[in-house]
């Protein structure tokens, strides 16, 4: 059991996860932002490590990634920053990024370093299922890391079953086939897609991401899934001055406290 499994065991609705890019807008505030998000009421976090060619991301996260790289962010530096993470932050944390930086770092070494820092899971959109299963799954298991798979409206039922089998914390449902930073698709066909997934009674919880930007879209997502992820909208907040102080208001605008 990692922190993600414990979270889902105790709470299974209205979970809010926040994504942000490490090293953006400033190089050294990675853990400060995590702490502020925990205090403000986020249930878990995804910390992105930047890549020069993020094909699944829209302009907002392309920009944060490039700025983070310009600031000097690297995987080595990120793990250095995360050394004392668990002295300050208790909610589950995932790392999210593209496969090439991990391959260069060494996949096994990456998993070990992540576990040492108290990371609970990893999301690598361009790591295929076949390569994960045949080459890397052992490293993830040995380090108690959950690998998170994505599902889109075009993913076949057979493949969703296979993803459910390989997953051990949650499944990331994309609200549409799109890059990050778009609007939430609220068409009938999307409702059908959520209903179809719900009817499959998967063993893993589902979290919806892409297009979640305010309370209305968050609530909509939580009707069909166990929670939702906010990314681009939060990264935009970080462009503002005094962003750390604005985090509590941001979180309550998405998920007002009961």
């Amino acid at each position, binding site marked *: 059991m990692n922190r993600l499994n414990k979270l889902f065991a105790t709470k299974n609705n209205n979970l809010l996860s926040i994504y942000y890019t490490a090293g953006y807008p400033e190089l050294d505030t990675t853990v400060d932002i995590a702490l502020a998000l925990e205090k403000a009421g986020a249930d878990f976090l995804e910390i992105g490590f930047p890549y020069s*060619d993020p094909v*699944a991301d829209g302009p907002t996260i392309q920009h944060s990634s490039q700025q983070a790289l310009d600031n000097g962010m690297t995987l080595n530096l990120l793990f250095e920053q995360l050394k004392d993470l668990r002295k300050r932050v208790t909610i589950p944390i995932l790392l999210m990024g593209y496969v*090439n*930086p991990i*391959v260069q770092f060494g996949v096994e070494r990456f998993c070990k370093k992540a576990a040492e820092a108290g990371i609970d899971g990893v999301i690598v*959109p*361009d790591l295929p299922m076949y390569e994960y299963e045949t080459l890397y799954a052992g490293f993830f298991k040995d380090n108690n890391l959950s690998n998170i798979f994505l*599902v889109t409206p*075009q993913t*076949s039922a057979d493949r969703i079953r296979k993803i459910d089998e390989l997953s051990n914390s949650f499944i990331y449902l994309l609200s549409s086939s799109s890059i990050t930073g778009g609007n939430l698709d609220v068409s009938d066909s999307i409702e059908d897609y959520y209903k179809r997934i719900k009817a499959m009674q998967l063993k893993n919880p589902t979290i919806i991401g892409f297009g979640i930007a305010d309370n209305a879209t968050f609530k909509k997502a939580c009707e069909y899934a166990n929670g939702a992820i906010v990314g681009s909208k939060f990264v935009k907040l970080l462009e503002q001055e005094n962003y750390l102080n604005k985090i509590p208001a941001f979180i309550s605008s998405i998920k007002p406290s009961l």
Partner: protein
Amino acid sequence: MKYGVNDQGYYGDFGGAYVPEMLYPNVEELRQKYLSIINDADFKAEFDLLLKDYVGRPSPLYYAKRYSEKYGANIFLKREDLNHTGSHKINNAIGQILLAQRLGKKRIIAETGAGQHGVATATVCALKGIECVVYMGEVDMARQAPNVSRMKMLGAKVVPARSGSKTLKDATNEALRDWIANPVDTHYIIGSVVGPYPYPDMVARFQSIISLEAKKQLLEHTGKELPEYVMACVGGGSNAMGMFYHFLDDESVKLIAVEAAGKGVNSGHSAATTFLGREGVLHGSRTILMQTDDGQVVEPYSISAGLDYPGIGPQHAHLYKINRAQYASVTDDEALQAGLLCCQLEGIIPAIESAHALAQLEKMKFKKDDNVIICLSGRGDKDLDTYIKYFGF
């Protein structure tokens, strides 16, 4: 084929389909259908007819007499520059548009660097009356302006890629993003032997017409089917793969791939991927790419926009690693000088890409009776500005 792709899309350690889930259904559909479509008799008949009547194939295998005297071997040029639209790129574009039609796709997207693949794609879309969107780096649009106009005349929409370094790799990223957002009705015509499986294999098959013809033509010229050397330039590597394809299993044939060294391999302004790169993942396949220690993709440089790519196709990475092909590199200066020499000795203005392959002739040690085939992948009309500025004509 000994050096072909396996069931999982790999050439030895290289290849695969490293795509986000959003692209999985598109790539999977292609993987399941591409072989049955391109092996279908009806497809083959239409492909062959268009290559003959529309492209003008077979392209000649020209015995270059004055080159042969200069270099002391029998030098043959495979004249892909004489194809409709001016380069080998049209072979793949024709194949993929016929495939897209049979997949029921209504919209085509493509990336382009120098603009040759963009022009070829715009051309086949006009031919078939299909909507066409070409992504091109903003920097490349400026340095290849005539090709931008050509694409527009052919009815394509040219979208500037403004992310990253605003060149070919960013145009490729933007095309992939478009495909993610339009997964059902759109086919992505990748222009080189790069990208997720099955693209490297599919594009190589469409380009393999180059070596299929060359083998027959060499036999007519010399009475021999196999040359001693086959040479071609490599950016992503599509003309080289087409030129090598039917010689791969003939181990006596030495295959020479020529990369762009830019201002020198170690100058910091180079695109010599096998010299400067390491194994990793780029644009959906495991291959060799130029990158930092931290795995960030490095922006390459070459005076030739068609060779200005930070990776090579996965099959090239494999041929390099197992030493089936030799990878050399040629600087901007060497290529431009070789381009001028080709004008003066043979009366052919080559594309600067192809001039890289010609420049390698200076570095070879041939025996007197060696037969050497070089792929003259494109014509130099698009490069006149660069030649004129360099030589001051």
